[in-house]
């Protein structure tokens, strides 16, 4: 018969107490899971339009949305957007609509005083524009992976530094979220029976910062070793697809409509 060590012989008198940081941990874990949806949503999908055509249309439509003063034109802009959203999977739609509606509701709260004081007309356009812009950005992010987006930006001759910053930010969002989630889970497990208080959060943030720095240095060295010079060469081959024709025609139609209604000659 094996003798148990002393620490295993001690009776357990552990009672889980309500911890103040439980709410904090849950909130932080929730934030990290939200950040990780960026990588989930950006899986490459089979899409009949190219990232470049999508980006051009996105910029044109967003400009029209921001510039219009007519509610009916804005509502007409919803038609192609809602149709495009129909092609996304159901799980993605729930997340997209929830986040977009929450932000639009917040923007409505901001303009509510103007609405109730008699300025309902133009003020109500703001939450509608906010909703539209968020939906179209989430739609674009769902259709194309981040490397396709940066490739499209390179084709538009955006400065390499801007693309590099965006590229790095998008990659690190996912990496940071995973690391933060792992550290939070580890900290939570080690906190059973011990009340570490709020200082755990700061040490977690500090560790995350140091790890990010180390990761980024290693990434930069690896990129230099692979011949990265800071420029993003334009991807080879044609960037256009069959569906781009329809999309660009729809964009031109709305641009024409905008000039016809907002700025008649």
């Amino acid at each position, binding site marked *: 018969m094996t003798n148990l060590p002393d620490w295993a012989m001690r009776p357990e008198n552990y009672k889980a107490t309500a911890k103040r940081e439980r709410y904090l941990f849950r909130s932080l874990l929730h934030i990290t899971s939200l950040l990780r949806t960026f990588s989930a949503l950006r899986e490459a999908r089979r899409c009949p339009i190219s990232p470049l055509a999508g980006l051009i249309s996105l910029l044109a439509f967003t400009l029209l949305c921001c510039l219009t003063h*007519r509610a*009916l*034109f804005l*509502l*007409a802009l*919803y*038609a*192609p957007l*809602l*149709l495009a*959203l*129909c092609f996304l999977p*159901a*799980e993605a*739609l*729930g997340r997209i*609509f929830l986040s977009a509606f929450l932000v639009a509701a917040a923007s409505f709260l901001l303009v509510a005083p103007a609405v109730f004081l008699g300025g309902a007309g133009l003020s109500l356009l703001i939450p509608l524009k906010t909703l539209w812009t968020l939906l179209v950005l989430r739609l674009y992010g769902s259709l194309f992976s981040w490397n396709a987006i940066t490739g499209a930006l390179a084709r538009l001759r955006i400065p390499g530094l801007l693309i590099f910053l965006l590229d790095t930010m998008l990659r690190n969002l996912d990496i940071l979220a995973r690391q933060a989630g792992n550290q939070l889970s580890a900290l939570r497990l080690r906190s059973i029976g011990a009340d570490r208080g709020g200082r755990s959060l700061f040490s977690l943030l500090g560790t995350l910062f140091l790890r990010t720095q180390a990761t980024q240095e290693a990434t930069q060295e690896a990129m230099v070793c692979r011949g990265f010079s800071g420029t993003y060469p334009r991807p080879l081959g044609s960037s256009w697809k069959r569906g781009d024709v329809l999309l660009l025609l729809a964009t031109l139609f709305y641009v024409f*409509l905008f000039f016809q*209604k907002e700025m008649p000659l």
Partner: protein
Amino acid sequence: MHIPENYLSPSTCAVFGAAMMPVWWMAVKKVKEELPREKISLLGAFASFSFLAMMFNLPLPGGTTGHAVGSVLLSILFGPWAACLAVSLALFVQALFFGDGGLLAFGANAFNMAFLMPFGGALLYRALRSLLPPMAAAGIAAYVGLNLAALMAAIEFGLQPLLFTDGVGHALYAPYPLSISIPAMMVGHLTLFGLAEALFTCGVLAFLARVQPELSEKGTASSRGVWPLIGALIALSPLGLLAAGTAWGEWSPEEIAEQTFSGAPLGYTPTGMEAGFSLEALFPDYALEGLSEPTGYVLSACIGTALLVLLFKVLSSLQPKRADYGTHRSEA
């Protein structure tokens, strides 16, 4: 066949609304139990078929118009409870956003087109399927279903002047009695509109049988064959503008005083219509102010279709995933 606002008294609307509550509750329960998540998403695409079918107005001599509904098609493909839910939501979107059918009269419209029509059509289809080829059974069921709904609408119209009149005997709501409303509604539906419904139902079923035969059986399926058809219907939706007249029983308060269905102009506008409830729809009569009618029609078709598809997709995402034991095929 859409009953506009203030053609039925508020009490009539309340009765039909109350009658539909347990039907809707049951429909939601049955859809959650019987349809897998993928089919609920697909139901949205087919609800848009119903929406688009109701945009195609067909003219009848005499200046009136009508349209197909598509309820029986949905009940053949998904079952009557799912058809009830889908058509109800299509009618709701039409009433709320496009002013096609009254919001207060939504219960009555749903009773006619989302309950009587799919259930009546489904029962007849099941009875006839063993005696006739499936297409013939579907066509007859669609024809009879539409006429059943039209008859019910005519009865609802015709009862109003019997039950609700003012001190001088003028009707407060729909002014024509049963002796006028039933023949007026049924002539068009027994001839042209019923035939259109049958052709629409058989046409879509034949297309699906060729492109996606698995959709005709109650198994899981994708919607890849459905989207080109929806796209074609959206592009062709301005054809519904060619029928210039107003459907029987859908006149505006300004038009009704001049109607001569009783042999002479009516001569008055029912008080209930003049002073009743009204809601300014975002896209009244599927038009966008400042845009040409065909453009407005196409954009309205896009918005209505997209709203229905998105609504059902979001509803399907709320359904818990069920374990797949490979027992997809249920009895028809």
